[in-house]
């Protein structure tokens, strides 16, 4: 009898099947919740022409910014591609070497949730009357205009959590939760790096944030790097 066991030994093995041209959702809001070791493993794997979904575009020359700098990303879907500490995305964007789909932050979150919930499209008041509604279907409900937005799915999600069991049940840490739970729902294969692993049953069922059905692989990174510290130290990857 095969037990359900989603544990993977290494970040390298966890991301090994991410293929060229894949859509990859990457958790995190700034450095909070950024699965930096999984991203670095993806850099090592060399998969290219990726479409990456993240709220930002990373900072410095590590993590998501390094993945972009390594020319592995053909397109970013995000809400806020500028950061104080990164020139990587702006330089490539100005050079016409990377595509940008700019999405309001709440619409981005809702598109991901919809994708994970089997909802192909929905209507929202956000962006009506702005350039970000150009070309999109408008519809009036009860006297107010709404714009149609499409659900968003991915081939893979890379997320970070605090604790996990072998079923893939996850608990997060403070505001590092951000996009993790919804990206886990929206991806075909969800890979979570966790600060620690616990026995099945050790997490109170009332406290589980992401139920294991949404998670495919867990890999322990007991002492994850802190993006801001790496940036402050002038580090780059690889």
């Amino acid at each position, binding site marked *: 009898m095969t037990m359900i066991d989603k544990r993977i030994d290494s970040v390298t093995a966890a991301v090994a099947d991410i293929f060229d041209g894949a859509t990859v959702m990457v958790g995190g*809001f*700034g*450095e*909070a*919740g950024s699965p930096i070791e999984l991203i670095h493993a993806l850099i090592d794997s060399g998969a290219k022409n990726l479409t990456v979904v993240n*709220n930002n575009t990373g900072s410095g020359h590590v993590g998501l910014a390094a993945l972009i700098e390594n020319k592995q990303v053909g397109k970013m879907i995000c*809400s*806020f*591609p*500028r950061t104080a500490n990164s020139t990587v*995305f*702006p330089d490539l*964007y*100005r050079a016409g070497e990377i595509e*940008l789909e*700019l*999405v*309001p*932050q*709440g*619409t*981005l*979150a*809702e598109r*991901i*949730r919809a994708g994970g919930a089997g909802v192909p499209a929905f209507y*929202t*008041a*956000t*962006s*009506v*009357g*702005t*350039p*970000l509604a150009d070309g999109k279907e408008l519809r009036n409900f009860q006297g107010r205009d709404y714009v149609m937005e499409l659900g968003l799915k991915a081939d893979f999600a890379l997320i970070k959590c605090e604790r996990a069991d072998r079923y893939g049940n996850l608990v*997060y*840490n*403070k*505001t*590092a*939760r*951000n*996009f*993790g*739970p*919804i990206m886990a729902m929206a991806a075909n294969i969800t890979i979570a790096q966790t600060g620690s692993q616990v026995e099945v049953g050790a997490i109170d069922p009332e406290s589980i*944030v992401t139920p294991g059905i949404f998670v495919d692989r867990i890999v322990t990174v007991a002492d994850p790097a*802190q*993006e*801001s510290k790496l940036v402050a130290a002038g580090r780059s990857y690889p």
Partner: protein
Amino acid sequence: MSTQTDTAFGWNREQMAQRAALDIPNGAYVNLGIGIPEKVAQYVPEGREVIYHTENGLLGMGVAPEPGQEDPELINAGKKPVTVIPGAAFFHHADSFAMIRGQHIDICVLGAMQVAKNGDLANWSTGAPDAIPAVGGAMDLVAGVKTIYVITQHCTKNGEPKLVDSCSYPLTGQSVVSRIYTDLAVIDVTEDGFVLVELAPGVGFDYVQARTGATLIPGQQLAG
């Protein structure tokens, strides 16, 4: 000791935040934008309990941590370290924006590049061709939060009016702003246009009108 008369003229950034804070009622759920709006929290009058939302996923945001106590996984929407109050809650991004888009947040205070007399707001892009477009949660906030207040300097650094007949910059939202706090005045957006409801110390109506790109209507509080 100076013998010059110390005549107050206008409001500084702190005083703008202080004035806006007077309009935050007890029990409100409030989202504060980056910059001067952030300062509003420190001036809400004693005796009012206000819950601060930060859209990256926290309700019950507290003050900045003591130096050395920062937690990189406990930050606000400006990606600065924060603390939590007792009774705070964490949640994921879709829940956080459901609070915004589902009209559960009472008040949002944010900055502006331009506000039009019909309440249109432009605060995310100048439309310059070489700019990297970035919107964040601004469009969600103005479309979903019940009441939108703006805090802004009355004019740009070049002296151009920020309160105008119609915005020349790309919009963040249509007819969304209720009230504007500037260094010169408090101005309401009404069906008739901009109504000047309060002048900063030492500032006259004509002075404000000369620096506004649309007609100002004197409010009843100013009459007589």
